[in-house]
C-alpha cells in the first residue's frame, strides 16, 4: 500500500464521501436550527416558568441528557411508530432526535449563562431606571449570549460528531458512506482514515474558533 495508490483510490470515491458529508452537514444544521432556539426557550421556562411547564421541561432535558443518542434514534425510529402509531419516516425521526438532543444539552448552557448574570446587574438596571424593554435587550440578553456562545459552539461540535450515529438508522451520512465503501472495496484503512480526518478537520476548526473567541473577546471584556 503506497500513498499514491491510496490517494487515487480515495479520489475515485470522493463523490460518495462528499455526498455523505453533505448529508451529515444537512442533519447537523437542521438539528442546530431547531435545537438551539428550543434550548433557549426551555432554559427560560426552567428558570421562571409555571411549575407544571417547568417539570415537563426538566424531565425532557434530563431524559435526553441521560440516555445515549443511539438509543434515542432507535426509539424514535422503531418504538414511536409501534407505540403511538406515528411513523415519522427515517429522515424526520432522525432530525427530530438530533434537534431534541441539541435542545436538551444547549438548554443547560443557556441556563448557566442566564444564571451567571448576577442580581447586581439587575439592581444596576433598576437604579438607572431601565424598564424591562431596555434592560432585557441591551443588558441581560447580550451578556447571556456572549457567555453562552463558547459552550453552545462546543455543543454544535458534539452534535456534529454524534450525528455519525444516524448511519445506524440507514441515513447516508459521511459515516454511512465511509462504511459502505470500506465494505464493498474491502479497503477500510484508507477510507475510514479519510472519514475520520474529515470529521476531525471540521470539529477542530470550530473548536479553534471557540478558543480564539474566549481568549480574544471574553478575556478582554473580563466577562
Amino acid at each position, binding site marked *: 500500500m503506497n500513498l499514491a495508490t491510496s490517494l487515487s483510490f480515495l479520489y475515485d470515491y470522493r463523490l460518495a464521501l462528499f455526498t455523505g458529508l453533505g448529508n451529515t452537514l444537512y442533519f447537523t444544521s437542521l438539528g442546530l436550527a431547531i435545537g438551539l432556539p428550543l434550548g433557549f426557550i426551555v432554559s427560560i421556562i426552567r428558570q421562571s416558568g409555571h411549575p407544571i411547564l417547568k417539570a415537563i421541561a426538566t424531565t425532557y432535558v434530563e431524559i435526553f441528557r441521560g440516555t445515549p443518542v443511539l438509543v434515542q434514534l432507535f426509539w424514535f425510529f422503531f418504538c414511536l411508530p409501534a407505540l403511538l402509531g406515528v411513523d415519522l419516516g427515517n429522515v424526520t425521526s432522525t432530525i427530530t432526535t438530533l434537534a431534541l438532543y441539541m435542545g436538551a444539552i444547549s438548554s443547560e448552557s443557556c441556563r448557566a449563562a442566564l444564571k451567571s448574570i448576577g442580581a447586581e446587574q439587575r439592581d444596576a438596571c433598576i437604579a438607572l431606571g431601565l424598564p424591562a424593554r431596555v434592560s432585557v435587550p441591551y443588558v441581560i440578553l447580550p451578556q447571556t449570549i456572549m457567555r453562552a456562545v463558547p459552550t453552545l459552539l462546543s455543543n454544535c461540535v458534539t452534535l456534529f460528531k454524534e450525528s455519525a450515529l444516524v448511519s445506524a438508522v440507514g441515513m447516508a451520512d459521511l459515516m454511512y458512506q465511509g462504511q459502505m465503501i470500506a465494505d464493498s472495496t474491502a479497503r477500510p484503512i484508507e477510507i475510514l482514515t479519510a472519514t475520520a480526518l474529515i470529521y476531525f478537520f471540521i470539529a477542530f476548526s470550530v473548536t479553534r474558533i471557540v478558543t480564539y473567541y474566549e481568549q480574544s473577546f471574553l478575556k478582554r471584556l*473580563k466577562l
Partner: protein
Amino acid sequence: MSSCFLKVQNLRKSYGGLVHVLDGMNFQMEPKERIVVIGPSGSGKSTLLRCIMGLEKIDDGRIEFEGARYIEAQANRRKDNLVDTAVRAKIGMVFQHYTLFPHLTVLGNLVLSPIRARGESRASATERAMQLLKRLGLDNRANAYPGMLSGGQKQRVAIARALLLDPKIMLFDEVTSALDPELVAEVEGLMLELAEQKMSMMIVTHDMWFAKRIATRVIFCADGHIVEDAPPAKIFSDPAEPRTADFLKKVLHVDTVS
C-alpha cells in the same frame, strides 16, 4: 403631608419574614444634607439604602420624597409595594462592586439610560457624557471596556453614570470597600467634590475619617434601629449612646477621631 426632602416612616423589612433587618425605622433628611450611615456589619445599612432606591420590597411603612408619595407598603398585600417610578428616577445609587455593564464601553454605560429610557438624542447624551468624563479626567477612557479599567476608574465611571441622570440625591453603599487602598482616594475625592457642589447624599462607609470629613450628619444603626443620629463632631468625640461609643472604639482602635 409635610414637604421634607426625604422622609422614611416606620420602615420595616425582613428577608423571608423572620428577623426584621429594619425594624420600624424613622428619619428625615433635608436637601444638601450628607448623611453617613455607620453600624456593625449586618445591621441593615445596605438594606436601608436598597429600600430607598426601590430595590427591595418593604414589609411596612412608607417613604416620601420631596413631599410626594414614593414607596408605600400596602396593607394585606405584603408582596406589593406602591412605587412611583417617576420619583425613583430622581435617586441615584452606586454599589460596592461597580456593577458596570461589562459588554458596553464607558461611554456606552453612561448613555444607555439617557438614550433608551429617557429618550434623549444620542448626540446630546454623548456630549453631556463626554463633558462629565472630561471633568472627572476619564475622557481618554470613553471607549474602553470596564474590564480594562482600574477599580478606582470603574467606581468613578459608575458615579458618572448615575450623575448623568441628574439625581436629586445620591446613595453610596460602601463604594470604596472593594478597592485597593491606593485607589480609595480618587473615589473619595470625587465624592468630596460632589459635596462641595451641595449634592444631597447618603453614604454607607467603614472609613470613619472619611465619614468625619464628608458628613453633615451621622446615623448609627444597630439591630434595625437608629441608635444615634448626630453631627459628626458630636458623635465621633462625644457619642451619647454607649453602643455607639463601643462600636467606634472597635472600628477605630482608639477612643475618638481627632
